[in-house]
């Protein structure tokens, strides 16, 4: 029996397949315009490898969780990230998930979600903020982090993504080095995330979501939180892995 977890986020769709307690497959797709369409693509891709309704259970999570018609169950991304992080790190602590449109802090104890916090409507401190800024600076996320390492300390004071973009435009206009702006952009996200995470403090943190392989972001978080922040390449799939684990329950 396969357990399939499908995490359809606002920008990326993540898939994890578990068999006998092992993650045997992961997939990463662009969510694009239609959650329903990406859900169908995922089913077809898995079916071509012999994973179908006949031998698998599916749990959907993320913003597009209701658009997966073949899902056996639907669970929120908070519970799934909690389960997934417990599987990956097997320790008590707080999960920091910087997602495409929201950032979450999930306090974990013995694999259970004790408390969680999520940013409200505003997109400051989320992947959306970085997406807008990298677009404006003509950089990829990786390039942004590499540049930020060399940048001098400047601060972007606007919390709002739209105002911050204007601020960045005026910095560009003034001829501020791109590395400095990159530094300011990442620091802005770190500050917002840390303020949010302060409500679910821990002595150990786990970074999940799209920024999990970004060492610079992880280091800046460690510095700001004054505590270790762990991650692993699989942490990008934490929500999907959690969903796959939950496919075995019920």
């Amino acid at each position: 029996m396969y357990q399939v977890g499908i995490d359809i986020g606002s920008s990326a769709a993540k898939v994890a397949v578990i068999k006998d307690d092992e993650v045997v497959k992961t997939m990463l797709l662009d969510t694009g315009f239609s959650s329903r369409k990406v859900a169908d693509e995922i089913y077809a891709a898995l079916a071509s490898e012999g994973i179908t309704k006949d031998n698998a259970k599916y749990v959907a999570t993320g913003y597009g969780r209701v658009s997966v018609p073949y899902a056996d169950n639907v669970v929120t991304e908070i519970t799934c990230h909690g389960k997934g992080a417990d599987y990956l790190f097997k320790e008590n602590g707080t999960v920091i998930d910087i997602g495409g449109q929201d950032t979450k802090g999930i306090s974990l104890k013995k694999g259970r979600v004790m408390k969680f916090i999520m940013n409200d409507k505003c997109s400051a401190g989320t992947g959306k903020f970085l997406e807008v800024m990298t677009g404006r600076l003509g950089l990829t996320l990786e390039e942004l982090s590499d540049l930020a390492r060399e940048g001098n300390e400047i601060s972007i004071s606007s919390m709002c993504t739209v105002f911050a973009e204007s601020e960045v435009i005026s910095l560009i206009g003034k001829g501020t080095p791109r590395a400095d702006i990159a530094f300011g952009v990442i620091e802005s996200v770190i500050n917002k995330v840390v303020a949010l995470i302060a409500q679910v403090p821990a002595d150990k943190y786990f970074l999940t979501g799209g920024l999990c392989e970004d060492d610079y972001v992880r280091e800046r978080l460690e510095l700001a939180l004054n505590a270790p922040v762990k991650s692993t390449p699989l942490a990008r799939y934490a929500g999907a892995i959690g969903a796959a684990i939950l496919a075995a329950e019920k």
Partner: protein
Amino acid sequence: MPNLELPKSFDEFVDARKAGFIHVKDYVENGGHLVGIFCSYTPLELFDAAGVCAIGLCGTSNEPIADAEKVLPKNLCPLIKASYGFAYTDKCPYTYFCDFIVGETTCDGKKKMFELLNDIKETYVMQLPQGQKRAYAKDIWYEEVKLLKEKLEEKYGVKITDEKLREAARKRNALRRTQLELYALQGMNPPALKSTEVMSTLAQGLFHFGVDAQHATYRARVDAAKAAYEAGERPVSEKAKRILLTGCPSTGVIQKVGVTIENNGGVIVCLDDCGGERTTKMMVDEDADDILRAISDRYLEIHCSVMTTNEGRIENTKEMCKKYNVDGVVELVLQACHTFNVEATRMQEMCEEEGIPYMKLETDYSTTDSGQIETRLAAFLEML
């Protein structure tokens, strides 16, 4: 007779709204008098004794907010904006046809909004003390209640006698007892009613012409629910997580919060806002020598976050959590409601001490954050 012309935009209204206007117009044409009110601090017995009908005007819809923002700042609570917006746009029949409005100096947003509202419709503002504990606090409120009594007597050419006040207090207390029966239905396991049914019964209750009509509606609801329960009907699953909803008035978010809790495996067993058990269980001493004083004392006792300090609210919630066997507390903060938002820290501390999971939701009447609210509520319910 008051102005009985329909609003200029009447022809553009949808049928339900037109019907509402005609219904209220009929009432006024047949000699009925309406006074608009906003808050649980308003001493209702005085209106009953004056023979006029107090009607709740708290705005609970997103519809007039864009228009209200032409005058009021955007960064203000949706209840205040909607209340003003309905007057500004002539879209609420009760606001439109009421003789005047009575408000109180509760939060800063409301008391300053009342100054502007007065330009549209006469608004009389009662001045609340900032707390209940000073030795003279009760005297202040008593004097204010006396002034309102004089205002009503003068406006309507009636005498508000002690007998009439006593009679009104009896009726109001009886209504309060029935309302408590309604709340008690949710104490059962499983509760007798869906949370949204309780919320909409209470919301409808505010739009009856007079205490008797309101009481009859609640009575019928309670009796029907009891009979159905005894007949074995269980509208709520036994497994539903039992939620106490505290914080700001929740009528404006029945859909966004009430329905979402229901759809994700929860049920609100205790509505812990100012219309809930906390306020309703406070009775007027019907046999007091000074009935007006008994009335003013009863209302001043109400725990709202505008009072400093306000421990009574937190202590009461703690009690309710036990009484209703609550699995989790959700605190509703309407955007820019500073007093409830700040006081939420105290509520959270209490919940943490008691080991009750707690979540604060800050939202407004719009649908912009429905997705996020749903994720948060669903995750909270999954966690319980």
